[in-house]
């Protein structure tokens, strides 16, 4: 299971997927500069990422709490998600994300 993550400068990292972890936790563990200041409580919108290459459509849509919290994120696009709400599993193998600006 692999996750591809691009930072704000365009540098790509390949991260080993960990079943049950959130994407936010995996980005943080890999040392990517993701703020995630509330620690995964869907309360701050500072773990905002864009899902690339059609991945947004492949995943179940965000729940209401995440959609609401995205109103507090900057530079939201149609493929925006909060990475603390994405839980890693086999279905996410190959997921491509880009860190949103902050």
């Amino acid at each position: 299971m692999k996750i591809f993550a691009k930072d704000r400068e365009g540098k790509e990292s390949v991260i080993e997927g960990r079943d049950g972890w959130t994407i936010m936790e995996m980005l943080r563990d890999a040392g990517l500069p993701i703020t995630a200041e509330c620690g995964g409580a869907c309360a701050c919108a500072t773990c905002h990422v864009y899902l690339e290459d059609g991945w947004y459509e492949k995943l179940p849509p965000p729940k209401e709490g995440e959609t609401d919290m995205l109103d507090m994120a900057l530079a939201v696009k149609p493929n925006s998600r909060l990475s603390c709400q994405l839980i890693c599993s086999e279905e996410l193998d190959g997921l491509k994300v880009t860190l949103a600006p902050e």
Partner: protein
Amino acid sequence: MSSPIETDAAIVGAGPAGLFAVFELGLLDLKAHLVDILDRAGGQCTELYPEKPIYDIPGLPIVSGQELTDRLMEQIKPFGATFHFGEMANALEKLPDGRWKLSTDMGTEIVARVVVIAAGGGSFMPKRPPVPGIEAYEGSSVHYAVRKMEIFRGKNVLIAGGGDSALDWTLNLAPIAKSLTLVHHRDGFRAAQHSVNRMRELVEQGKINFHVASVKALHGEGGALSGATLAGADKREWHLETDAFLPFFGLTMKLGPIAEFGINLHENLIPVDTARFESQTPGIFGIGDIVTYPGKLKLILSGFHEAALMAQAAFHICRPGEKLRFQYTTSSSSLQKKLGVI
């Protein structure tokens, strides 16, 4: 300006670590003043997750961020700490007599024997949208809060965001602005429904404009805004005459002026020793999420432990030559008197 306040400890940050520091200092008869940029106690607990349950506070199987804060406030009440809310600690200076002078942006000056930095992730500051050159307009044409509504009278006002602040100010400024445009990334809002309904009425009446759009660029000269480029969901871009831009995307933590205090920092954290929780500058202590040391965990309970050890070390600076008598609250009548239970 009034004369400086004199106390034992000046605490920067009124989150759980700063609050419990009042307790531990208080048991040792040390007085404290706290400064916090927020308008109330609790820090992240009340700003980010007041309603969310916390399950890892020893002895409290489940407690919300707000409830934990309320309980800490109750616990430290006997020690009569003074809170300076809505103020940002912005300068720290060592005085010739060895004490510290902590100043705030509101002009408060606190002279203390020790300073305790319990600032978590730093100061809560408004999120700044990633619009190129926005800094040049801040304070003149770009505002993250409304202090005086009158300055928007007769102006072309642009508001961005979908929360309560964005909607409330849309409704409040609509009657006095020359024109008002609200932009948000979707045609849905997390704000209170009645505000959203009222906003939609104003749009229908042609009194304000709403667009699913984002602000791409700002235009103007010498800090005075004259226009903005908006981009719609369909990537279409257009120009909007704009005198004032108000982005409302909530708060985020920035280290802020603490970086200028002259304290040694490592990746925006304060390295401390784990016996005293003192920074590399004697007399300046650090506790809670803002400190780093081998094995550090950003947990509230770690902040409590750090506060207890800090207080022991701070005592020897505040009361040189005095013997510290270590006592337990269960058995010491003098501690119980301080707590007001006997």
